[in-house]
């Protein structure tokens, strides 16, 4: 396989692993944990590297992931004391840890690949060069196999624990009443997120990994109708971002890490604007329709069953003559009122429309859809 294809494969594996982590973080409203973890794993990685002089040993990855997990749990304990503000505790601990990592790296690892830019955004192209061999045969970049293993672990955990995770996320109380330990399950999941952050460190760095975790999942959250759908949509967006980032990186002659994250961000922006139910445009459209309906109802009830003159109506509603004319024209077009000479009259359809609206909005449980039991 060519170097380019390996780069694409690594990018895709990184994006998929990150997207899976992101789904659970976004649903549980703790996206900030991704931010914290990606910083907290740095000292573990750097110290491990100083001690072992090897970058990708499974032992080192495991140790750094564990260190990251412990940091996250420590922050949660710190929050629970109530002494430090939750946001402040995240900011204090993780940034401090990150700076320790940079400090050690700059003192002890001057001549290695631990440059500032690698720490921040990783280097996929570099990772693709680091081949691993089994029994004397080169089988491809080490980073790919590591990420593949992480992906397998994440996938297996999700598949085996699916219903427990669903309960833990949706209603920890129910899980507890079934005798499960949702806190333990959550900690296990955070451990896997930490593992992913460490494994993706070479390919996405500690800043971009956050984008790859959160952006696809946040977009999927706006589109999905179930958690299952959300997982697949997030993976799809992640894979597409990897491919787009790879292409963009080729075109711009740069390592694909940053273009990947930008693509994921762009994908989120598009979904945020255009999602069919939750998107900005859809919401604006709904709100406009609601306002138009409100004006229509005001018009119908302003005219009343007896009908009235147009000028009277404008006065009663404090509408300008032009606005009043416009609303009447619209209501005539929809068949709710008709003009008889100078007078405006509500049609039968208009009367039914007005009554239905009042019953829906003001009768019984205001603002709620009618309950079937009630009928």
């Amino acid at each position, binding site marked *: 396989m060519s170097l380019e294809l390996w780069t694409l494969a690594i990018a895709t594996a990184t994006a998929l692993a990150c997207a899976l982590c992101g789904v659970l973080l976004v*649903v549980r409203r703790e996206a900030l944990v991704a931010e914290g973890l990606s910083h907290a794993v740095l000292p573990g990685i750097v110290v491990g590297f100083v001690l072992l002089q090897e970058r990708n040993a499974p032992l080192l990855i495991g140790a750094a992931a564990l260190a990251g997990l412990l940091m996250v749990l420590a922050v949660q304990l710190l929050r629970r004391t109530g002494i430090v503000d939750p946001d402040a505790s995240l900011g204090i601990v993780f940034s401090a840890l990150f700076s320790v990592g940079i400090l050690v790296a700059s003192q002890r690892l001057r001549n290695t690949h631990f440059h500032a830019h690698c720490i921040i955004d990783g280097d996929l192209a570099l990772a693709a060069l680091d081949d691993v061999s089994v029994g004397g045969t080169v089988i491809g970049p080490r980073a790919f196999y590591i990420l593949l293993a992480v992906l397998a672990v994440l996938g297996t955990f999700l598949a*085996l624990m*699916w*219903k*427990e995770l*669903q*309960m833990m*996320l*949706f*209603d920890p*109380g*129910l899980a*507890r*009443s*079934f*005798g499960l330990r949702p806190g333990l399950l959550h900690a296990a999941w955070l451990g896997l997120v930490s593992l992913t952050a460490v494994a993706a460190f070479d390919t996405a760095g500690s800043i971009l990994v956050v984008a790859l975790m959160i952006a696809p999942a946040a977009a999927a*959250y706006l589109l*999905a*109708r*179930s*958690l299952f*759908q*959300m997982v697949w949509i997030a993976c799809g967006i992640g894979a597409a971002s990897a491919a787009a980032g790879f292409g963009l990186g080729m075109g711009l002659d740069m390592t694909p890490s940053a273009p990947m994250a930008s693509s994921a961000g762009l994908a989120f922006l598009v979904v945020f604007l255009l999602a069919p139910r939750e998107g900005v445009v859809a919401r604006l459209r709904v709100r406009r329709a609601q306002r138009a309906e409100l004006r229509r109802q005001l018009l119908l009830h302003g005219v009343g069953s007896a009908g009235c003159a147009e000028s009277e109506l404008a006065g009663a509603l404090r509408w300008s003559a032009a606005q009043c004319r416009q609303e009447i024209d619209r209501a005539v077009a929809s068949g709710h009122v008709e003009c008889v000479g100078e007078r405006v009259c509500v049609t039968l359809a208009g009367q039914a429309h007005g009554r239905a609206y009042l019953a829906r909005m003001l009768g*019984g*449980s205001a603002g*709620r*859809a009618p*309950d*079937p*039991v*009630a009928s």
Partner: protein
Amino acid sequence: MHGALDRSTRLATAPALGVRGLSVAYHDRPVLWNVQLELYRGSLMAVVGPNGAGKSTLLRAVLGMVPVLAGDIAVFGGTLAEQRRRVAYVPQRSGIDWDFPTTVFEVVRMGTYGRLGWLRRPGAAERERALAALEMVDMVEFAGQQIGALSAGQQQRVLLARAFAQDAELYLMDEPFVGVDAPTEAALVRLLQELRDRGRTLLVVHHDLATVPEYFDSVALLYRRVVACGPVEAAFTEPNIAATYGARRVGGGTC
């Protein structure tokens, strides 16, 4: 041998719920103090009391969701761990994240997960039970809907259906009628009474004093301690209500 026999009779005849000397505190503030409560099988009991009386905490303590300072809780004569499958819990609607990406059917099916155990996936039997539970609350047509799109009353019915899908014998319900319109409330009360008539036991945290005699057969008046507990005619008296709610509540009335 003698001991084993004792135990089996005890399990067969013990009240559905027996709480003795239960005390629970949040930090330094006692929320429940030396609470005694007996809930007989086949009864429909209301738990009433002012805000902060410890009503929800009582349910959560029975379910082992809050640490207990002192006291003993017996479920059908055994420990909660032994009897867990016979107990179902309906949490407050406000404690649920209704933006969660899931459907009505999935939520109700979660009620069956307690019996499934680790690594087992829900199958046709779980599907049947979930649909039957939705049928009970008249929500089958909403099975495929997003939970976020439901009205408050419909959300409440989904939570009840989830508990029914557990097919339990003891139901603990935290304010199941909040946000529900009057006709729906009447339908749900009939449903709870039917369950009681079929031998189930229900403990319901309730906020509307006016409807207690009509809906329930027994009542526990709680303000950190149990002021009174027993059949509605005996326990739900003006002096007891006054003692529970303080002088301002004399004369009954609703929250």
